[in-house]
């Protein structure tokens, strides 16, 4: 899949927009709010250039707890921009400093931008499900049927239905984003379980995708011996049977699935080309209140939907309460679309300077699926 991607970029001139000289990787951390903040500030001190904090919740497993709604615990997600070359070293530093490997200590991972070397690790992957508010717990529950994975839920909103206005405001559907990081083969099982459990005929249930990660630290192993990974696993893409199998398998499932989608989606541009479209994820960060502009731009360029999260951002490692009062909140918009569409959106955003304080990040998406196989809007 990666190879395919790269060749595509080499041949296409327009793709140069994905290549800029100072691309950054993103380092994400999820832990308790206090620890996340401490880790993020530590990272800012050691070379990261900005940290975006987003409220999240973790989930403790347990049937009764889950039934009574007590399983949710407060977590915080920090997304930091770091230099690609320094990212893994920084992750290791954080791990040493904050003992990420201990139980419930938190998790941190690195994602490189779509085309940057090195390509993602094949050992670990991240499954992301964007579902309607309230269904995050269901996703986690289903995921844990296949493997006892850790999962975090982020609150978000989807893009508005522009045909209807209520009191002159557009109604945005509330969404939840579920993040699960685990071994690649576990991720596949988890993904399939979630997909089977949530697929529905009704439109607009949400999306599911898998994405590569370059390094991870703090995956808590649910084995009996409670062994943990003390080392960040930064793995160069291994050649050989293993990966090939993986790629073939990914393609097989995704193709089947997308064909399914294409049957009902006549407008989809992908139906013109014989090969399966490559999907990428685009994250655009802007000042709070301007996400709608980015979404509009994406829709004009042919993107189908977007998910918006609120957060606050800091770039100073000395984050006193006085500094916080002056900080601005940000909206981060996640758009999963075909590569071509993402390029169009990016150039549109860059050319028109639609949103203040714009920062973007593009990552590879494997196996993008909609939960709704019925008639989509």
């Amino acid at each position, binding site marked *: 899949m990666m190879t395919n991607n790269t060749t595509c970029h080499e041949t296409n001139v327009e793709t140069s927009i994905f290549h800029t000289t100072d691309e950054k990787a993103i380092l994400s951390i999820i832990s308790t709010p206090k620890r996340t903040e401490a880790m993020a500030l530590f990272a800012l001190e050691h070379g990261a250039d900005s940290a975006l904090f987003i409220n999240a919740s973790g989930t403790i497993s347990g049937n009764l707890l889950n*039934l009574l*709604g007590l399983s949710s615990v407060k977590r915080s997600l920090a997304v930091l921009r770091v230099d690609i070359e320094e990212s893994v070293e920084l992750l290791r530093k954080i791990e040493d400093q904050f003992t990420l490997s201990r139980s419930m200590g938190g998790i941190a991972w690195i994602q490189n931008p779509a085309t940057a070397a090195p390509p993602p690790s094949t050992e670990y992957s991240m499954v992301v499900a964007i579902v309607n508010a309230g269904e995050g717990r269901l996703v986690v529950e289903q995921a844990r049927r296949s493997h006892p994975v850790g999962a975090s839920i982020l609150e978000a909103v989807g893009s508005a239905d522009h045909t209807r206005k*209520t009191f002159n405001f557009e109604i945005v559907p509330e969404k939840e984003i579920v993040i699960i990081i685990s071994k690649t083969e576990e991720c596949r099982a988890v993904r399939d379980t979630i997909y089977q459990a949530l697929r529905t005929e009704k439109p607009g249930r949400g999306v599911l995708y898998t994405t590569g990660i370059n390094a991870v630290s703090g995956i808590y192993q649910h084995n009996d011996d409670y062994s943990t990974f003390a080392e960040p696993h930064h793995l160069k893409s291994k050649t050989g049977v293993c990966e090939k199998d993986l790629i073939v398998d990914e393609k097989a499932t995704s193709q089947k699935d997308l064909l399914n989608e294409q049957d009902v989606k006549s407008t989809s541009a992908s139906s013109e080309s014989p090969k399966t479209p490559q999907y990428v994820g685009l994250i655009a960060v802007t000042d709070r*209140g301007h996400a709608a502009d980015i979404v509009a731009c994406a829709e004009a360029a042919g993107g189908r939907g977007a998910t918006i999260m609120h957060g606050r951002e800091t770039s100073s490692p000395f984050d006193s*309460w006085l500094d916080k009062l002056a900080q601005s909140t940000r909206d981060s918009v996640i758009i999963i679309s075909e590569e071509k569409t993402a390029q169009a959106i990016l150039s549109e955003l860059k050319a028109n300077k639609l949103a*203040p304080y714009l920062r973007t990040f593009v990552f590879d998406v494997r196996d993008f699926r909609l939960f709704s196989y019925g008639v989509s809007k």
Partner: protein
Amino acid sequence: MGLFTEKVKEVLSSVLPITLFVIILHFIATPLSGVMIGQFLIGAFLVIAGLAIFLVGVDLGATPIGEHAGERLVRTGKMSWLMAGGLGLGFLISIAEPDLQILATEVAELTGGAIGKFAMVIIVSVGVGLLVMTGFWRIVRSVKLRTVLWVAYFIILILAIFNDPIFHNFAFDASGATTGAITTPFILALAAGVSKITAVKSEDARDQFGLVGLASAGAILAVLSQGTLVSVPADASLATGETVAVTHSLFAPYLAYAIPTFRDALFCVAPLAIVFVIMQLKVLKLRRHDSAPIFFGLFCCWTGLAVFTIGVMGGFMETGRIIGSMLIDRGQPWMTLLAGLFLGMLTVIAEPAVLVLTESIEKVTDGIIPRKVVLTFLAVGVGVSVALAVVRIYVEHLLLWHILLPGYILIMIMSFFTPELYLGIAFDAGGVASGPMTATFVLAFTQGAARGVPYANMLIDGFGVIALVAMAPLVTLQILGIISVIQKKKQERLSEPSHAAVTSGDSVLADQTTESTMPSRELTPPLKQEGDDV
């Protein structure tokens, strides 16, 4: 236990300070009897347990119900539904508030039946309903909170002039009573639900706050308009009814309070349960998986609130009164003053509604206004207020309005410089600061102190402290808002010009800023922006 563990930690950090302070007072200034200190410690334990359960209940029950209700109402897209919903929910939640029933009984006695108990409860509830309705209206019509508050407080001022001073006390007490432990989270959640439609377009969470403040103003307005119509017997203020039964048994006070408290708490939670059941059957139709936590949450709200109240009534109230009168007896005014200051500071951070509000502030502002900062500003304000109340006990001719009038004038002037977000937070905090902890512990303390001073009137001075406590956050949290404006200006000056202009989220200027900075960005691309795009 996930959520429960989190809440226990939170509650411990807010209730232990006041507990420790009382124990310290016991050793250095006001030696309490063994039974007394035992009762207090049991009370503190019940408060901690009850509050933790209650907060779990708020997260699982009251908040989702309020948010669903607000959201469903606004999504109808019909102003008539939204207005009717606001009026109805505000009325329902207020009429069920046991504190309001108690106050109405007192008022009926004090006015010699000139104001009937039933009439008072109804009128205050209508007042709350009307202002909740107004709050909904201003959110969907994008009317500034500042404007609505100005109008409301201007009417209050006019009415206050034509009212007997005793009604000023009733009015402020009614505002404290209607924004109780359950009401506050519910109204906060209603505001959150309704403001969801404006959330994507606005650059901060301003519309989520201010509704609690408006509801309190509604109660004040209702009492004052009622007061203009009724004349009060001249000797009204002298009829102080409350007698204190001192018990020498460790558990007796708790047993005495147990049954009525559980019953009252049930009344409190009932409207929420009714609203939820109706919504669940008619519109929500949540799966069992999603509705079970809400029912469990309602149960937690009920038991938690009851256990908490039993703890406060049985352990804190009596202790507060004894400490107050003991300090006065020692004849060292500075000591009473200092004790009042700390007692006020530490009591308000143990207030259930304050815990809910500060948590909500931290969450919806994405941590820009951290809970600890709000608590600190709130605590200082309330501490100073209680100290002022103590001063009033010692100084014979210092009337309540001598402090309130300049206070509110200051507040209204400050509101010109405070961002809308902070204005809403400040008025919400004003509504919640005078909750059950303050209304029992601090009130008992000042009343105990007033009893030892011959010319102090227990009733008047006691009520006064509630009004002062309700005013304090309006000043201190607006100061916080003004600090944020100054900080933003400072940061703008430090960072490069174009970047700074964009980061400015100052709500007073925000609408223009975003518009005007866009072209300039195109002309001068900021340094930091280069290569930011991947």
